[in-house]
């Protein structure tokens, strides 16, 4: 390991994990977009940094033999936003990445850094939850995987334990269908006021839908009951009911982006638009 006093530059995940285990006050730095903003705002003052730039396995997007995908934790938003191979139900991951901040910040920020920060207004969390992504986590004990829905646990809190780091995001193979990410924000590049991420595929039993709402509580909201209502051959009443359930499950805040009440109001409305658009896209295809 190259040790430059306060900056550690591990060449492998194992090295990174051992540094973290040894130095609990060290902070991981990937793109810097979040960490450095916090340093500049004097919210944190790390004693040591662990740069992940030299860990090869954390970089890049690779296709698994089963058609699934592994997105290395250090993959920049820019590269996910430009990923044309994320088709069908996976298109929402690419769409979410393309709406993060702006082109320059997308050159810096990484998927691992973003999800480890777990700001509820971020674009990735609802998209990954709707896509049923798995988060790969490394620790001294090896690797584990968690569904995205279990990874995000509270406001700015994840299932990461100390001396753990996100190594990759795994996406299952795309189904032939539609993935959509819609975001309402005050201006381009702002955190979401409300966002909706939705995948829809069609099969013999009708459509299968997964929907997650972002920025409406500490973590993305996905309800199996709502997904069930939105699957099969749902009509307007099922769609309305699903929207009501998601709104009832929301725990939004009043902030400068909108009131809690407005966010609750938007949930069924934005869900309905995304659902209708996805259904029309599927209909157009079949």
């Amino acid at each position: 390991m190259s040790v430059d006093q306060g900056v550690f530059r591990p060449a492998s995940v194992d090295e990174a994990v051992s540094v973290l285990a040894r130095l609990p006050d060290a902070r991981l730095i990937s793109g810097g977009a979040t960490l450095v903003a916090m340093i500049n705002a004097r919210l944190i003052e790390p004693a040591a940094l662990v740069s992940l730039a030299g860990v090869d396995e954390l970089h890049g997007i690779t296709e698994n033999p089963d058609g699934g995908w592994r997105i290395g934790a250090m993959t920049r938003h820019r590269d996910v936003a430009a990923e044309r191979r994320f088709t069908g139900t996976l298109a929402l991951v690419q769409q979410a990445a393309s709406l993060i901040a702006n082109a320059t910040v997308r050159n810096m920020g990484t998927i691992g850094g973003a999800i480890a920060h777990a700001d509820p207004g971020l674009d990735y969390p609802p998209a990954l939850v709707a896509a049923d992504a798995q988060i790969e986590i490394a620790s001294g004990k090896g690797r584990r995987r968690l569904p995205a829905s279990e990874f995000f646990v509270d406001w700015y809190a994840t299932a990461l334990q100390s001396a753990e780091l996100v190594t990759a995001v795994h996406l299952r193979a795309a189904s032939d269908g539609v993935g959509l990410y819609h975001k309402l924000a005050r201006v381009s590049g702002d955190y979401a006021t409300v966002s909706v991420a939705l995948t829809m595929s069609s099969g013999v039993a009708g459509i299968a839908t997964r929907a997650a709402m972002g920025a409406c509580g500490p973590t993305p909201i996905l309800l199996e009951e709502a997904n069930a209502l939105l699957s099969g051959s749902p009509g307007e009443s099922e769609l309305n009911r699903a929207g009501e359930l998601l709104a009832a499950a929301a725990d939004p805040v009043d902030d400068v982006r909108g009131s809690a009440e407005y966010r609750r109001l938007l949930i069924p409305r934005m869900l309905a638009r995304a659902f209708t658009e996805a259904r029309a896209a599927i209909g157009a295809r079949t």
Partner: protein
Amino acid sequence: MSAAFESVGRRLPRIDSREKVEGRAQYIADLTRPGMLHAAMLQSPHAHARIRGYDISAALATPGVHAVVTGDDFAGANRMGAFIKDEHALAKGKVRYVGEPVAAVAAQTESIARAATQAIRVDYEELPALLSPDQALASPVHIHEEVGQYFKVFDAGSEGNLCSRTELSEGDAELGFRESDLVFEHHFDTQAQAHVALEPCGALAEVDPQGRITLWSANQSVFRVQACVAEALGLPHSRIRCLTPRIGGAFGNKMEPHVQPIVAALALKAKRPVKMILSREEDFETVRARHPFRIRIKTGVKRDGTFVAREVEVLLDCGAYADDSPGVLGYGLLCARGPYRFPHARCHGKLVYTNKLRFGAFRGFGNPQVSFAGESQIDDIAEALGIDPIELRLKNILRGDDRWFGGQQLFSNGVKECMERSRDASGWDAAAPAPAAPGRRRALGFALCGHISGLLATGAIVRLLEDGTVVLNVGANDIGQGSDTVLSQMCAEALKVPVENVAFVSPDTDGSPFNWGTTASRVTFMTGRAVVSAAAEVEKQVKLHASEIFECAIEDLELVSGGAVAVKGVPEKRISFFEISKRAHWFSGGPIVGSNSWVYDRPTIDPKRAVVIGLPFPKIGAYSFAAVVVDVEVDEVTGQAQVKRAWSACDVGRAINPMLVEGQIEGGFAQGLGYALFEEMVWDGARLANPTLMDYKIPTTLEVPYEMHSIIVESVDKDGPYGAKGVGEVCLSPVPAALGNALRRATGVRIRSLPLTPEKILRGMLERKQ
């Protein structure tokens, strides 16, 4: 007509373009001096508290710290204020808002200074926080206990937490309402907007061995900085020299002082140059912002649409210090009648101290708020009468040399042309308007307003150098709008020399003639006129030389292109400025200097027409006009409004540089768009909740329509230089109302509070459905 001009009317690049595109323009943060220290401030955690004492020993003992200043360093009598002298350089005796500067440290580095501020202990005794004008008016607690004793430049009527009050009337409004067929009355509210000049405020002070201060800062007027620092430190003006680097935008934020007196005090104490640059958060929390207004507006009309009477009552949140607020109140009221004929009008209001950041000058100066109310209501009246809103306005606008509210005559009037050209360009009357996308609604909206160009004092000095080229010295800061270029063009025009032969002097209180400031849309009009008059002095002198050389009468001579004098009708009989200036420098008459200074001299009020109480500015005027049409699309799902296209027609008298005029119109539109749709400073109790660019959003490339069409109307003002008037503010003020009117036409929803958020629009649409 403009074909006769050589420099005026040309789309010349700004003279400071090159240094700016090469990254070589120097702003305050870019300046350094040998041995310079860096400063940081300690801000108040309380909205309202008495300061019992300080312990600065730990801060002073911090390695690298050279000086600490607190309110104790400023004498009690040394208060600043443009209208009411109520403010010390640092909180003294009391803190009056969260974030107020309480102490400051000069140290080896910025981070040492910032850390040392946290070592200062302040003993506070908390007082009740008064966070709204209503609360403050009702409270026995006074934010300024000694308001009665403060020096005031006009009859402000200050009492308790009432900072000032103004009332302005013509005719008899009550009689007018009785004579009206229909009377409309509505309440409007506007929010606090942050200036967000991309450059945060800052200053650098250096003290010479004689104790004289040289002060560079981000500012809109070196002379205002000089005056305020002199007041704050109790020094004569002659002990302070103020200079300006390039200014990274201002919009009113840098007109009155921010940290200049603090930095000057630190430099005096540390005996070293000191620089302080605010963080974005400090800039949000401590400088100033646009006033929230509460407005009641009542308008009486005849059934045929003739306007009869208007009453406007406003309540302004002043924040903790008066700053420019009394001016904003008075000016807002002067604009509240709008550019319309009303036989009867009464506009009155109050300004109330609260425990918030001071509110102050911001592009528009009270006009955007009252125009939002007035222009929204006119659309509602048009709707009630079944008259097209532009037709209704055309029926009532000021015509010809009609008078503005208060009685000042118009010397140019492009109102009708602004209206017609924006209307026609936008296809307002088209049978088939642009279609909305599915799930969206779309409509055009219109609004109109007028704004002054003239007030207070300014000057210009034009000198011929030995070789006959020119130096122009005016003391007016270019804050980004392009006045250096525009004034150079006017000077070049007046002397018929190429613009590149005019050197522009950076404002310097030691050498430049007084200029009150780059503010109030006044520099082109006011300083431009001084430039033209000073150039005329030079013309007189060069002609005198030529008349001696050619042995002819001065009346037989004329300036000719390229910087020369010729005998009229005999072009070959000419002599260049080069030869004349040589003669003047070495043989006869002495170097040629032309100068001029003036103060705007047309009274605001004609006492035969209007009655006024508490007028902060007896002489302002010279009105510009703007008409705006916007094309807005509203998302039915979220309520979010998007501006698809816009047309803004501005009567600027004459466009000295049409490219720079367009820049003002486009930029003013964008700033008005942000104000109208989403910009809002939000307080969580007494604390500003969004003092960052993460949380306070201004428009990006994706919110401002690319199809933003500037339309320049030239009415040629008899008072203005080459007929020019101001444009900097008139282009912003009608934007919120135009957007609100488009939303109304698209959705049926009338929103009477800014900003026009998706939340308010959606609620309105849902309520209408029920």
